[in-house]
């Protein structure tokens, strides 16, 4: 265990000792050092396999909605995860008083696919000391540069520090540069309409409709998703262009004012489909048109979920 993991372990032990939580959601070591798994600790006895490094690729806020509101949950949160938790609290998916957020400032998630693209699939071992990352390929140690490995969403991260956490472990990091998010949106906008459609179609039509993007997303917690609705059916359920495009565009729209750009959807996708180019644009619209950024606190309703008597347009009231 490194220093951060030791601090994390001590904090989790304290939470159990002082009976602050019933459950702690964190990461644990798995058989392959390259694939740490979400862990669900019910007591401090199992904590020896606790793991925290840049390969922990899931958004743990995703699991909050799977427990009753009465469960007191401690959860390890990085910047994006803390904002997802806040957004879930706003949407009344878990009461804040039954949550204990253990914040960790995040230097970005290492994308296992980027490692594999550089080294081939037979990669093993993984060590990370600050920005030095090394793996083993066919018995040989290979050094890799963190910035070549970060997931695309993390390269565009603006808020690496947890918001609203109950405790923060590790040193705070400088905020990211919002213009980098603009660059990504800009390159999509720079295309003309037919090029944009071709891009969208190319991404959407590799979809195998496994819905890993949906299931990995903390904000996709509906008990019945629109694609699963049978009467009436809203979209084709086959892997037809119409069905796949409908899924991708409507999934993105349902995230308006709710997405925290964590990129868990893209990391879960088995077909390497890009999705954040859509949600990043919607997020930008939320900022420029409504001065709203998802999850910066746990009180403010997203613009499309709230209404006021002095709203500019009065179509609801």
């Amino acid at each position, binding site marked *: 265990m490194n220093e951060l993991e030791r601090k994390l372990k001590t904090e989790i032990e304290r939470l159990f000792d002082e009976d602050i939580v019933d459950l702690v959601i964190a990461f644990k070591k*798995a*058989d*392959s050092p390259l*694939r*740490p*798994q*979400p*862990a*669900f600790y019910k007591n401090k006895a199992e904590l020896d396999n606790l793991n925290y490094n840049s390969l922990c*690729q*899931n958004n743990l806020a*995703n*699991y909050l909605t*799977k427990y009753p509101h009465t469960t007191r949950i401690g959860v390890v949160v990085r910047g994006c995860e803390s904002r997802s938790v806040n957004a879930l609290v706003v949407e009344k998916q878990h009461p804040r008083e039954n949550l204990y957020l253990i914040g960790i400032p995040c230097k970005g998630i290492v994308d296992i*696919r980027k490692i594999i*693209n550089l080294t081939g*699939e*037979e990669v*093993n071992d993984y060590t990370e000391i600050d920005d030095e990352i090394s793996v083993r390929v066919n018995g040989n140690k290979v050094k890799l540069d963190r910035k070549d490995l970060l997931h695309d969403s993390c390269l565009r991260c603006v808020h690496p520090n947890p918001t609203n956490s109950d405790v923060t472990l590790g040193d705070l990091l400088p905020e990211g540069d919002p213009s980098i998010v603009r660059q990504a949106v800009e390159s999509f906008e720079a295309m003309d309409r037919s090029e944009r459609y071709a891009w969208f179609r190319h991404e959407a039509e*590799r979809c*195998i*409709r*496994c*819905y*890993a993007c*949906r*299931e*990995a997303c903390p904000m996709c917690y509906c*008990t*019945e998703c629109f694609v*699963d609705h*049978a009467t009436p*059916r809203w979209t*084709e*359920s*086959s*892997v*037809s262009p119409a069905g796949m495009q409908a899924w991708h565009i409507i999934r993105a729209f349902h995230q308006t004012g709710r997405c925290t750009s964590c990129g868990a959807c893209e*990391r*879960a996708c*088995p*077909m*390497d489909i890009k999705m954040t180019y859509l949600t990043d644009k919607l997020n930008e619209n939320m900022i420029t048109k409504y001065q709203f950024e998802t999850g910066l606190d746990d009180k403010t309703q997203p613009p499309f979920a709230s209404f006021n008597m002095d709203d500019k347009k009065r179509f609801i009231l």
Partner: protein
Amino acid sequence: MIYILEKKELDQTLTSWSENFDVFAPQKVEKYSQFVPFKSFSELTFENPHNTRFPPKALFLPQTEVLQKYRPNLNQLQEVVQTPKPRVIFGVRPCDAQAVTLLDTVFNTQENVDPYWKVKRDASIVIGMGCTNPCQTCFCTTVGYGPFNHDGLDALITEIDEKYFIEVLTEKGKSLFTHLPPATKDQELQVHSLQLEVKENMPIAFETKNLKQKLDKIFDNDYWQTISESCLGCGVCTFLCPTCFCFDIVDEVQRNERIRNWDTCMFRIYSQEASGHNPRPTRRERTRQRLMHKYSYWLDHIGKIGCTGCGRCVRYCPVGLDIRAMIRTASNVKSEVIND
């Protein structure tokens, strides 16, 4: 009979087959490899040690397939069984070919023949690529199959240096290779000893003896709750699995088509009944179903494990769940502790 194909002649061989057949081979699509119609020799990925990401079962059981067309209001249904052009599917790994033979026991039996499946099977010559470099995630020998198994193949390639040694296994397979020079006795020995060596060097991931009995005994155990906790409930493992075959039939009314789509037991709606009842209401029952189907129910049906050890579910699970570890832990659960 083993024939020899020089590696440098492969391009020309595939091109010449293309005149009479639709040739499918693993090629680079985006940053991964997938079975697509043979286009370019330089894009071929069949020598990569790892398998294609999307399983070749889709060549026989497409993810979406039109079964019937109908004309509204006329009470007319028309079956659409499209016989494909004869095709060569080149570079199939033995685990995936094995999987197709397991699916034959579902779609092509004496009692039940699925015409959509059968026409594609009959039209195909399947050429396997033996695995000289099994991956860390491979466990075919554990589940009773192997890196050079013949099942489901018409010919099997073993790659040694600059040559492909082609073992012809059926008449269909023979038709493609008779023009090639045969291997000498020494070369045949070399091929077989390499095959044996690779097979024996593969680690055994878990013990399969009495596994079914052990799993059946812990059906109601809390173990399933524990392992399902991190499962997202997505369809990655099952859709990429070469042996998963569940499907759902829907009517696409705007196109007047009745369609068969892959479905997966990992989805809540898979087992949702019209009454509102769901016999597998949580991820606990659904995760259990996936493992029990492969390691218990298949044994009830055909006496074989319904997993061929391809390792796709291990590689692509978004939360890093490893079926080998799940089975290992399951076999160690004490069955007398029943908590339900």
